[in-house]
């Protein structure tokens, strides 16, 4: 072979390597975990979920073990794949070495070397893609078993292509398991005390805009099992998720859903049949879902029961036959590879550098729960406090409540904020823990304290608009305007 031929062949090989052919239609991306591998000591939640040897693969039709192409090669473990809206890229959490932190990688569905996307101290997990290719993820990766009680909570970050990540959530609890809804909001899981007080820890679904504004409870705040994971928006608009009683290692859940039309009133089982456990649910075209469901244990797979991939129709009465099962692996996550409509974007009103946001409460006395001790007195003042780390709470001050219950107050941005309404004697009427934050320049409003979910405000002019806002800072009280009476 002449040197010219060698050069030409080499160049062709390089070109081919650079080309990323699309995956065949109907392909799936799977997470496969090896059988019986214990997680390393000092493991993170991802080490438990994806033990060493776990991999992200492309499964092309017909779905057989020999049609699997590994996408995460070169990594010691990988999982939690997410496909870009154009169907061409797979983002996933991966670990380059045993000692390395988990980070987000991406790889073309056609193959190639995984490309490191994040370099977050403490690692990154739970990738999802918002409008304009923005990667949303959680960081740092919590230690195993401490997802909802970390000393350093995982926050959501957004990272536009070619830009540095920016933090989106500022709560005191971890924000994980993000997914992007078609309306552009980021749906995620975080924890708080149950409204009914039955459990100190309860995971719920919340939303933010993709600039971190308008943090709002979405579903699962009250009732149901305490642990929810992996929310996904289905083709018919329902939100499917996994629910379980605890979050210990090896715990599997079952699939539930809420209707987006009434998410606080419609929590139900997703499937009409009963399975041993569900590991993932993803939307498919139409109203079908793609689910990784555990069936009875198979030979050699007793540590993690046998998870297979199923396509389940919307009205399926039985689980049916799996569309893929590799006896050598547990297939715990599956997602279709297909181009889908990109979610909506959001034009941000955040003003970087602004030290505060503004909160309007239309009527602090408007709540779905009775005041403490059944105290019927209207609120006279609103006390605002901030959580400043390690459970330390700092009171910012109090502001008078107008006679219609309305309040407008400027508060420090990007800080977890809690609220107490006080009667004229200073007794606490209602308490809201530090679940709320305001982004710089954000104007935020609420109907009341513990207001009814999914309610629009009454069309009434709040008296608080008749005077300027109160200002409270982390460094003590500042100006507080007089309240107005009608």
């Amino acid at each position, binding site marked *: 072979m002449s040197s010219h031929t060698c050069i030409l062949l080499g160049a062709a090989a390089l070109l081919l390597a650079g080309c990323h052919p699309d995956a065949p239609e109907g392909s799936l991306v799977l997470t496969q975990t090896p059988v019986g591998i214990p997680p390393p000591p000092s493991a993170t939640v991802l080490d438990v979920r994806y033990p060493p040897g776990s991999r992200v693969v492309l499964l092309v039709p017909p779905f057989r073990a020999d049609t699997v192409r590994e996408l995460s090669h070169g990594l010691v473990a990988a999982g939690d794949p997410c496909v870009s809206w154009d169907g061409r890229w797979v983002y996933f959490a991966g670990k380059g070495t045993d000692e390395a932190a988990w980070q987000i990688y991406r790889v073309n569905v056609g193959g190639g070397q995984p490309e490191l996307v994040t370099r977050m101290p403490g690692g990154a997990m739970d990738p999802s893609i918002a409008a304009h290719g923005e990667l949303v993820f959680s960081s740092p990766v919590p230690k195993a078993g401490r997802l909802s009680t970390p000393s350093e909570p995982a926050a959501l970050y957004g990272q536009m292509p070619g830009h540095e990540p920016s933090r989106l959530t500022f709560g005191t609890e971890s924000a994980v398991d993000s997914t992007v809804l078609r309306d552009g909001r980021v749906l995620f899981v975080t924890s708080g005390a149950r409204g009914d007080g039955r459990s100190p820890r309860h995971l719920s679904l919340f939303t933010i805009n993709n600039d971190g504004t*308008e943090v709002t409870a979405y579903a699962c705040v009250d009732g149901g099992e305490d642990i929810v994971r992996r929310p996904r928006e289905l083709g018919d*608009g329902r939100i499917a998720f996994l629910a379980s009683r605890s979050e210990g290692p090896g715990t599997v859940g079952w699939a539930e859903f809420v209707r987006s*039309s009434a998410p606080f009133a419609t929590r139900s089982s997703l499937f009409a049949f009963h399975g041993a456990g569900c590991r993932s649910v993803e939307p498919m075209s139409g109203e079908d879902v793609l689910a990784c469901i555990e069936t009875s244990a198979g030979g050699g797979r007793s540590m993690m029961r046998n998870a297979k991939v199923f396509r389940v129709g919307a009205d399926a009465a039985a689980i049916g036959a799996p569309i893929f099962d590799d006896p050598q692996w547990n297939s715990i996550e599956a997602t279709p590879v297909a181009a889908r409509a990109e979610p*909506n974007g959001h*034009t*941000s009103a955040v003003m970087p550098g602004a030290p505060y946001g503004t909160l309007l409460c239309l009527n602090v006395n408007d709540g779905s729960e009775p005041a403490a001790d059944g105290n019927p007195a209207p609120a006279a003042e609103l006390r605002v406090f901030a959580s400043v780390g390690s459970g330390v709470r700092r009171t910012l001050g109090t502001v008078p409540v107008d006679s219609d219950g309305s309040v407008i107050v400027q508060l420090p941005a990007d800080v977890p904020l809690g609220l107490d309404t006080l009667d004229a004697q200073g007794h606490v009427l209602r308490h809201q823990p530090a679940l709320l934050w305001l982004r710089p320049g954000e104007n935020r409003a609420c109907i009341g304290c513990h207001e009814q979910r999914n*309610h*629009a*405000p009454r*069309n009434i002019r709040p008296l608080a608009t008749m005077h300027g806002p109160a200002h409270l800072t982390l460094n003590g009280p500042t100006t507080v305007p007089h309240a107005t009476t009608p």
Partner: protein
Amino acid sequence: MKLERIILVASSLALAGAGATVGGFSGLRYHERLRSGLPNLGMVSCVHCHQRGLDTLPWAKPRPHHDAPDGMAVSPDGKTLFIALNDRDEVAEADVASLSVTRRVKVPGGPFGLALDATGRRLFVACRNQDRVAVIDTRDLKELAAISVGIRPTDVAYCLTPAGERLIVPNSGSNDISVLSVSPLLELTRSAGGREPYAVAVSADGGRVYIANRMAIHDQVLSQPASELTVLDPSNGHVLNRVELHSAHLAEGVAEVPARGWVLNSMVRVRNLVPITQVKDGWVMSTGVAISKRDGEVTQVPLDEANAYFSDPSGIVASPDGKRAYVASGGADVVTVLDLDRLGAWLAHAGEAERSDAIENMALSYQYVSARIPTGCNPQHLALSPDGSRLFVAERLDDRVLVVDTASLKPVGRIVLGDGGLADPIRLGERVFTRARYTFQGQFSCRSCHPDGHVDGLSYDFDGAGVGDNLLANRSLCGVAGTEPFKWNGKNPTLQYQDGPRFARVLMRTDEIPQPQLDELATFIKHLPPTRTIPWSRVGQPLTPAEERGRKLFFATQRTDGTPIPVGRQCQTCHRPPLFTDRLLTSVGTQGAQDTSGVFDTPHLIGVGAMAPYLHDGRAKTLEEIWTVYQKDDLHGVSSYWSKQQLNDLVEYLKTI
């Protein structure tokens, strides 16, 4: 020597040129100062006074016309559908079985609303553009008779009463309702409606007619608005009831459900008194249906869902058995099917507080909405066959009528009227204007606040640097071409800027409208003609004596006693014809306690008679109030010398602009 002469001549010319320039500039500035009355001429240029002629503006030029379906009427045997084609001055007749247009007939004046008599022999046509009602013989489609009614009739209903046949015509432009006898065709009376009477339905027993009034009315700018359901006795036009629909506007549809004793109004529930800090959870507006019972109780229930909205509800019809109602959502391209049994059960079970708050509960509708039927672009009018088996949906901006089998709720086909006008940028712009998908969760469209491009009569507290300090009256888009800059503070130089990044941030809460669609939207808006505020019969006619006196007052340069009026305080200076605006910022002493500035963009006055409320925050309910309540130190024109009669004359003139 020669060189010196050249230098001398050149120097002289340069000096003369410089002198002429300085002199000319000084003269120009003197002229501008004199004519504008402004001490500070920073922004003033020649074009502020020397404006383009109206005939050069986009809305004054010929434009393409389209086969958009508006009102419809189904023959008693259900075999024939008549379709009003407002933009074509035509009525189409279609065969329901073959889904084909069989005949078309010219009906001058912009047919908009249709009704048939009980035999189906006579078709009554409300012609919106020329304020008339025509009677058509359905056998040969010949016009039998016609009569003038109030301004901009938008619907017509036929009614057989003990006193004889009646036609009820809501006149949206003159805020009244014409009651006509049919044989002979005479206007018996004209009853006062609410604001913009728009649609009419007849009770099953013929004893009552229900008129939906599209716009809301409020007592003060910060009081809760309400639109009206007017109930008339059709035999004599007597008003039997005026039902208030609180915070409801864009109430464009009305239907009776006799089996339940309900009257249904499609409506938008506005929340204009609440600062627009967010859009989520219907914070700005949501959609619903108002259920008015015979005992006067009104319950508003949502059409929207917690995370999905169905904006601009318009036509509404109820099935003959009273089990279903259908509502067209023009901004969402959807017809919503309401299960009235389930809705009735909810109403029976709900307590008073629940019913009162129902419209705010965005998670309620799943209990009674049984289906959402996707449609073509901008469905507005609906019609149901007499047996209820076929639903006809006017897909207005597709030039088609969708026919739905109500048993399966599946489409059976479409009656094609035109090509959709996809080659016409104005039409494409109207599609952008009416589509809600550019706002978060499809909550509202441009049309939601600007029906027909006009005003909704409300003030909104827009998001700004603070909360609750940016109350602004809605401004009409009709006749807005050439009046830039836009926005009350005059900061938006173009419609694209106004409707692009600014609206995306403060209103839509999504990505900006893409540039091609934004350009189409601006094209559509520029082609919106001014709203006609005088009867069609008076168009092109001389002013009345009162109007003429008012005109002289408007252009007065001195008071009645001969005292000169300063140029800067003459009406004509700021509201300079032909646009009736100098397009400059002016202070007229209206700065409110929450306003950060007292200087506002001078609005144009073309069609001002229909633009209430007035002033930047909508505090003046009427034109009169501008001077009787909110005038300060003669800053808004010198009015202190006017008598009440003169003020009346001025207002009469303003209504003709």
